[in-house]
């Protein structure tokens, strides 16, 4: 009896279980919409989402966002006077499924428009299918740089910025400070994950280029739970600022480990976790001054967002989060193109929609969006900071809810 044998056994058992899970999970697409052609027919939009499997949590969030958009559009009289129908298939978080899903949605079901799926891993293969059929492909997720390096000419990311640009407002602020107030050293710790690393490295590289010295640069695997040694390295370096490319539990554990070692940076920026509703309770309220970039805030005052938050809260009892908002944004972007061009069907119309989006700016719930030739949005994320037990927008200046505290108060 040896441990490697257990290992194989466990692996085999896990394999069996996941296959069972795949077989059990049902396909959510129902009904035949037929060919959408006539002007009174509903506009059918084909979507494949990870409703089961690894990405089912965010996948369902995106689904809620798409459905909220459909309901609100239909309530207001539809698109081009036609009602909107969604045809949503479950890709089980599987990149092979996502390809065949979009193939069948476009070729067999003849949907009029498609919306993107969730996650970089699924966005790239599905965008390729859409490209082959010349379909406009607006997607709510897939913020990693590589999405825009594939040479797609039909893809648009419906969010303010890709991961590497999340901190742009913060970087601009720091680099505009007078020389003697600027941070001189930084410590970086990032999860081995393209999104988490993208956010942290975007800021790190901009600071490094401007002469900030990077004293610690750690990468940890996603299964890391003990952060004490990473924290010890950061605390020992006594860097002016700390940047965390984090998801959730890693950020919480790292922040507490840093606090245990009495490390007091002038600035602490962590992606994702600080905007989580559980965050303040998890770290015992010692949140003072922690920063996070966010692509969406239900409190933001963009005109369509007020309506979205109100209607969404009515439907679901709670305000939307970023996944829902990005999905809703996708709907808004496509709708803007459709209304402007005046068509919604396969064929030449798709290229007209693409061309229109290339040249125009769209007002959305995450603010005005426009894109470069690769489909990369040209904006940056809002920067939020924990101030007196609340997370408030502090950058950029024109939409701020509170003044940015730098150096941050002690935590």
């Amino acid at each position, binding site marked *: 009896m040896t441990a490697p044998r257990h290992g194989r056994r466990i692996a085999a058992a896990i394999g069996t279980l996941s296959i069972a899970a795949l077989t059990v999970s049902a396909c959510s697409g129902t009904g035949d919409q037929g060919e959408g052609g006539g002007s009174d027919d509903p506009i059918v939009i084909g979507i494949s989402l990870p409703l089961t499997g690894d990405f089912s949590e965010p996948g369902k969030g995106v689904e809620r966002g798409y459905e909220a958009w459909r309901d609100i559009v239909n309530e207001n009289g539809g698109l081009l006077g036609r009602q909107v129908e969604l045809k949503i298939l479950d890709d089980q978080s599987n990149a092979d499924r996502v390809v065949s899903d979009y193939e069948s949605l476009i070729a067999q079901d003849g949907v009029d428009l498609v919306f993107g799926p969730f996650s970089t891993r699924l966005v790239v293969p599905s965008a390729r299918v859409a490209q082959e059929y010349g379909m406009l492909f607006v997607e709510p997720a897939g913020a990693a740089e590589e999405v825009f390096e594939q040479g797609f000419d039909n893809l648009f990311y419906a969010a303010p910025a890709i991961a590497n640009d999340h901190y742009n407002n913060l970087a601009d602020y720091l680099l505009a400070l007078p020389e003697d107030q600027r941070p001189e050293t930084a410590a970086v710790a990032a999860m081995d994950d393209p999104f988490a690393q993208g956010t942290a490295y975007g800021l790190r590289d901009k600071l490094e280029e401007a002469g900030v010295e990077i004293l610690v640069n750690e990468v940890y695997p996603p299964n890391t739970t003990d952060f*004490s040694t990473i924290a*010890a390295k950061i605390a020992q370096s006594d860097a002016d600022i700390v940047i965390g490319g984090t998801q959730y539990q890693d950020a919480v554990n790292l922040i507490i480990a840093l606090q245990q070692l009495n490390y007091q940076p002038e600035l602490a920026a962590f992606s994702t976790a600080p905007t989580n509703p559980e965050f303040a309770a*998890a770290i015992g309220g010692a949140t003072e001054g922690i920063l996070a970039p966010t692509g969406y805030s239900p409190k933001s005052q963009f005109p369509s967002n007020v309506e979205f938050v109100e209607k969404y809260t009515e439907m679901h009892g709670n305000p939307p989060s970023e996944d829902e908002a990005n999905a809703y944004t996708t709907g808004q972007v496509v709708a803007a193109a459709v209304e402007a061009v005046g068509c919604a069907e396969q064929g030449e119309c798709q290229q007209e929609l693409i061309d229109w989006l290339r040249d125009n700016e769209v007002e959305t719930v995450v603010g005005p969006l426009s894109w470069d030739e690769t489909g990369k949005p040209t904006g940056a994320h809002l920067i939020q900071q924990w101030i007196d037990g609340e997370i408030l927008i502090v950058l950029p200046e024109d939409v701020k809810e509170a003044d940015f505290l730098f150096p941050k108060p002690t935590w």
Partner: protein
Amino acid sequence: MSGALLLQSLILGVLLGGLYALLAAGLTLYFGIMRVVMIAHSAFLILAAYLAWWFNRETGIDPLVSLIVTVPLFFLTGVVMQRLLVSRLKPLTLTMMSVLLTFAVALIIEGALGFFFTGTQRRIPLPYASASLDFFGAQVPVVKLIAFGLAAVALALLFVLLKYTKFGQALRATIQHPEAARLVGINTDRVAGYGFGLGLATAAIGGTALSLDATIYPSLHWHWIGPLMAIIVVGGLGSIPGAAIAALVLGIAQSLLQLPLGPTWAQTVFYVALFATLMFRPQGFFGGRLAQRF
């Protein structure tokens, strides 16, 4: 690399190793008594951590107090589990089938935790969560110190229990030679049941210690079982002092190796030690006899 950082990492490594030691002690106990590979050990660990969190949320009292309930509860659960499930397995294929059985138990616990407490990641808000003591310029986090203290006390109690009590002698006799133990009048079935209960009781203590300084979620136990399995093989299957020493050594090694290698490669220390042990000293460094039979 400065001396201060080395000292700091050493302290953190010792504190981490202490917790590993307690958890590995329980795991090796099951194997020693019954040749059972208890995949669900770390699932019970997370269950105890969740109970501590839930207790704290409902009552506002320090999670350590939950030990008064969870330790006896886990002991009883262990006895029942051994009597009703594990003892029904055929002796010939016991070790292999116990992997499947306890794997199923682990999945049930994980699923139940997700069902009752959702997959949201939880952490107990403690007033002393970020407090630390100064030790020659290094910081000793209070929560880690408490967890280490709990582990040390529990291990000491376990040692005294096994070494100096009648039950302990009976348990050790059962570990060493079940047939001979039966011949001298030991009810090995009952002893095995209590032994199993004892193993789970260590999981209750370990889980509570863990909950003080960890963000917990239902699937967290998979991160623990691998290193723990490696530790008990290195220490010698069935040897409690072996498991404790191996845990401490590997815990410190992991912590120190993070300095030059970074967190990704430092994790592999458990498996490198495992492979080295299997290649050069398959009976483990402290166990000896027992492991050779497998």
